[in-house]
């Protein structure tokens, strides 16, 4: 399956170059240049510390779109992120076939539509915050290889957009918090967005089979020892292998041209593994005054590690400290306040200033961050 997808990606590129002579080709792009610094040297947040950093969240992207004949087009988006030293990678690469004016099919490397802003979370110009709320937008696997169908429609006076998506993902993430290989097979999902006048709503539901294996082998080694020592059930409760996973999201929005309100709540579950139910939400309010949009938002994340996994081991069990360490690494409780403003100082560029204050309720530590940045589209 993986090699097939790679061939497909290659096919997309070949199609792009082969038709370059006579296809209608368009270039678009976007960029963000952000600088951030925490308020004190003991703080760290979103990859920033006290030293002013211009690289961490900056990015550049160039999109090439070629219209082939008969409602077929190919799109490739090359993005370089500062955190990866601006090494460019294909963030998106897909074919689009327009079945009709209301229905389009995309196939290739796509964005997984977990969140309301998933599709354009990298396009800072498309929203008012300095970054999408991390308490909700925290999955490491944003893309997949697969196929998606998008259908626009009307239900009376309500505009409806339905997206169905199928595919799979292979990549890297962190657990416990060591680097790990992750794969999600058989990703299947649906999103439904409704808009009427100033109101909008979005529902998302996705499922998949999740496998995670730590690269340094520490967790895998622990699971092996547990099994050899007669605690196979504990190992089974921890192991993340072909685990049934579900993701649910609900977002609501209101925008009357001046007042901008939005909120999103998500919950994900990975059945019979060490990964606990993950909960996150944010609420945000902004007000446009000419070119300025000051805003305030609150976000919260609340994951309780599955204590029952190590509690069944008994207090004298030699494995208990290690198992407890693994389980509790999944406990995350954070509240974050953000206040800032967008300033549209140019038709294609917005300046953003944002102050974020995050309280980690597990370590009882507060981290504060100021970010200043410019987002452009071209």
């Amino acid at each position, binding site marked *: 399956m993986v090699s097939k997808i790679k061939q497909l990606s290659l096919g997309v590129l070949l199609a792009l170059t082969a038709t370059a002579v006579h296809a209608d080709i368009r270039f678009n792009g976007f960029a963000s240049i952000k600088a951030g610094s925490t308020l004190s040297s003991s703080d760290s947040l979103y990859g920033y510390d006290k030293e002013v950093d211009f690289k961490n969240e900056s990015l550049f992207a160039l999109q090439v779109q070629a219209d082939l004949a008969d409602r077929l087009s190919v799109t490739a988006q090359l993005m370089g992120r500062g955190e990866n030293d601006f090494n460019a990678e294909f963030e998106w690469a897909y074919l689009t076939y327009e079945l009709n004016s209301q229905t389009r099919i995309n196939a290739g490397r796509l964005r997984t539509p977990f969140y309301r802003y998933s599709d354009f979370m990298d396009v800072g110009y*498309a929203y008012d915050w300095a970054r999408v709320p991390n308490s909700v937008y925290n999955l490491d696997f944003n893309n997949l290889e697969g196929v998606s169908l998008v259908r626009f429609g009307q239900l009376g006076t309500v505009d409806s957009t339905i997206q169905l998506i199928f595919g799979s993902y292979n990549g890297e993430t962190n657990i416990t918090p060591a680097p790990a290989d992750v794969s999600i097979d058989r990703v299947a999902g649906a999103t439904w967005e409704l808009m009427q006048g100033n109101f909008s709503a979005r529902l998302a539901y996705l499922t998949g089979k999740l496998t995670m294996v730590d690269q340094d082998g520490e967790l895998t080694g622990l699971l092996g020892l547990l099994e050899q020592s007669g605690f196979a059930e504990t190992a089974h409760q921890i192991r993340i292998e072909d685990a049934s996973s579900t993701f649910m999201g609900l977002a609501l929005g209101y925008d009357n041209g001046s007042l901008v309100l939005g909120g999103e709540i998500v919950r994900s579950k990975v059945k019979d593994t060490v990964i606990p139910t993950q909960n996150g939400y944010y609420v945000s309010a902004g007000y446009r005054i000419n*070119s300025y949009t000051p805003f305030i938002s609150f976000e919260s994340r609340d994951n309780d590690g599955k204590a029952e996994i190590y509690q069944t081991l008994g207090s004298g069990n030699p494995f208990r400290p290690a198992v407890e360490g693994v389980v509790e690494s999944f406990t995350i409780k954070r509240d974050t306040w953000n206040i800032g403003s967008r300033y549209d100082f140019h038709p294609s560029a917005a300046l953003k200033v944002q102050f974020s204050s995050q309280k980690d309720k597990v370590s009882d530590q507060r981290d504060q961050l100021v970010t200043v940045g410019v987002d452009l589209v071209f």
Partner: protein
Amino acid sequence: MKKLLLAVLLCVPTLSLADMVVIAHPSAADISEDEISRLYMGRAGSLMPVNLPDGNPLRDHFEQELLGRSPAQMKAYWSRLVFTGKGRPPVEVATSAEKIDFIAANPNSIGYIPASDVTDQVKVIATIAQ
């Protein structure tokens, strides 16, 4: 930018808002403002909307009046679709005269122009209410 905005604001009253019309090929039927709005937002429809360039005062005025969005908001709106494979902005021509030629040659297209620019090459299918 402020100067530009000011210039746009100063221009708008002289355009006389009631005088903007939506035109189509002579064979076209009338359509509603809702339908026009959907077309210019890239949300379905069988007709092809034709736009003026970025920063054109008539375009800014049209988008503010009919779509209820400022130029920056429109730019943000399209950036949500263009970079995600969900849609593309309308084709653009430089002037009202070019728009009339384009629409006269493309039976499935529509466009907005000042009422005073209408010629017999095209048919007025809607008047943008003030």
